[in-house]
């Protein structure tokens, strides 16, 4: 009994340490965002201030970077989600001998260091665009290259998300729709796509976030442009300012809101499912009584 209690105590202590490790640095950074000294310091806490948030708002290049990050994120999602969806459908239908190679090619961006993805994207597209004489035009731009580079691995994330859901898809649904007279495209739009909708939502969210946060690929592909992350990297390299802490506070705040929203949505869905299940149980009981 006592050894069990010691065990539980140790587990609790370990979990505390683990999450202390995860959240500790962020918490300290959060405090520095509201402290007055120029150097981000948590202790001693001199006076409460919101100046750093104002500074952040007035930080021109950071706001430009944020704008670019959002554009890139939208662009990456616009490419990667359809690509990931198409790739997962082809994965489920592909000629079986080619599946291994196909899987390797599609998943390789996840195992390739981001640095290499960035470099190869720049080298390849620079030449392609110079041959097609697009270099001077609209396309050979950091934003476009970054979208292409990020899309290469974000598509692979999306593929995995869609594949995970597709493997649980009941093929009989597809056949039932066909049998009722639906054409193959109708099956896709009426049956498969609604089924995949939760995966589409996850793919959009995860795709956007991983694009937004990406540094390794972006830093090469962005050329002369900038994203929020590359601006941040520049700032951190130059020195330290509590304005960065303020930014982190905002991001954490938004993610917490997102997490809470997600939790509420999940709970609602669960309640609905529970209600349906109870109704089915009642119907089941009534049915048995009706026969007897």
């Amino acid at each position, binding site marked *: 009994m006592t050894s069990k209690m010691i065990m539980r105590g140790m587990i609790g202590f370990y979990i505390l340490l683990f999450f202390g490790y995860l959240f500790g640095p962020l918490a300290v950074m959060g405090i520095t965002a509201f402290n007055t000294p120029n150097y981000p310091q948590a202790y001693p806490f001199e006076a409460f201030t919101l100046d750093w948030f104002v500074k952040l708002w007035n930080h021109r290049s950071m706001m430009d970077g944020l704008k670019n990050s959002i554009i890139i994120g939208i662009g990456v999602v616009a490419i990667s989600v359809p690509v990931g969806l198409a790739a997962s459908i082809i994965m489920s239908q592909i000629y079986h001998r080619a599946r291994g190679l196909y899987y390797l090619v599609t998943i390789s961006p996840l195992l390739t260091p981001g640095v290499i993805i960035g*470099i190869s994207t720049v080298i390849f597209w620079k030449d392609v665009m110079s041959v097609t004489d697009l270099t001077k035009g609209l396309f050979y731009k950091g934003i476009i290259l970054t979208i292409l580079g990020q899309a290469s691995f974000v598509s692979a994330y999306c593929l995995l998300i869609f594949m995970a859901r597709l493997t649980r898809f009941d093929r009989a649904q597809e056949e039932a729709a066909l049998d009722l007279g639906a054409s193959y495209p109708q099956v896709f739009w009426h049956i498969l796509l609604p089924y995949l909708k939760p995966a589409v939502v996850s793919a959009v969210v995860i795709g956007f976030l991983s694009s937004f946060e990406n540094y390794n690929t972006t830093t090469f592909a962005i050329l002369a442009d900038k994203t929020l992350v590359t601006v941040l990297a520049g700032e951190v390299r130059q020195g330290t300012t509590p304005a960065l802490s303020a930014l982190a506070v905002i991001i954490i705040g938004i993610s917490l809101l997102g997490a809470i929203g997600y939790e509420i949505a999940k709970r609602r869905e669960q309640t609905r499912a529970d209600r349906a299940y109870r109704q089915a149980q009642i119907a089941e009981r009534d049915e048995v009584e009706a026969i007897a």
Partner: protein
Amino acid sequence: MSSRAFVFIIPVIVIAIFWVMAVREAKRRPDPTRKGFFERNGVVLGSVFIALVAFWTLFLVALPYLYMVVESFHPALPPMKRGGPDDVVTIAQYSSFVVNPTIGAVNWLHMSALLFSIIASIAVTALNFAICYPLAYYMAQAGTPQKIRLLMLGLIVPYWVNEILRAFSLRLLLASRGLINQALMGLDITDAPIDFLGNNTGLYVGLSYAYLLVMMFPLYNAIESLDKNQIEAARDLGAPWWRIHRDVVIPYAKPGIASGCTMVFMLSVGSLAAPQFLGGPRTLWFTAVIYDFFFQSFNWPRGAAYAFIMLIVCIALVMAMLRLFKVSLGEAIK
């Protein structure tokens, strides 16, 4: 351009080979359930699918990679000389990794940078495994559903803050004016601040912190599917806790462990932010060398060659490890 143009032909040939194989096999052994791709998806939708995936796999994945490799076998030339008579195929960029061309001596600097990156990454991988395994096991085998949901959320939320800011937060903690040194000095444990960043503590902590989640989820998924009865049975047979883990849990979770370790290792070697912001001034990470070829000396072919060397060495190492622990590549990259 000719030596580069052939890059475009390779994927076409590979696709053609598989196409011919598929057609021949379909003729040899007809399968009544088999429907043509366009028959199954409709011509419009099928074409869209193929176009999307072809664009991705060819123009975003295969061709850029192949192209980078080809580029690494060329000399660095100013734009107007590219494709001219000087633009020959050469292994100079690779040999420069071994022998420094400017001073003609063995290139210890770069080789040791690669070696250091790899060894440090192995250390970080081991560290993360040690940190994550107990929690993954606890969540997978002992937690109630609500508790697991909460823990999951707790794991994910910090990762919505990007890599750079997370590195920044660690720097605030570990700097000579940081909270930890303040505490150490305040408690009179030390009287001069410890240089955590200079002695690379910051680097290791930063890398470990950055990829904790990447280890956590494969481990959790692998252990979660283990039947609780197996552990009960082992316990009933009187196995001590460490033997249960050594003989039951770890062998079962091996594919997940392999997958987590592979990902952490690859990400860690390829990471740019943590070494940049948390490494000591004398520490040279291999990606930083590559970075400098691109942005300081503008020698793209050499940067590409170094990137390719890094990729090959890492893949070789991962494959060797997987073979050592008898895990197939397919299991590890699931």
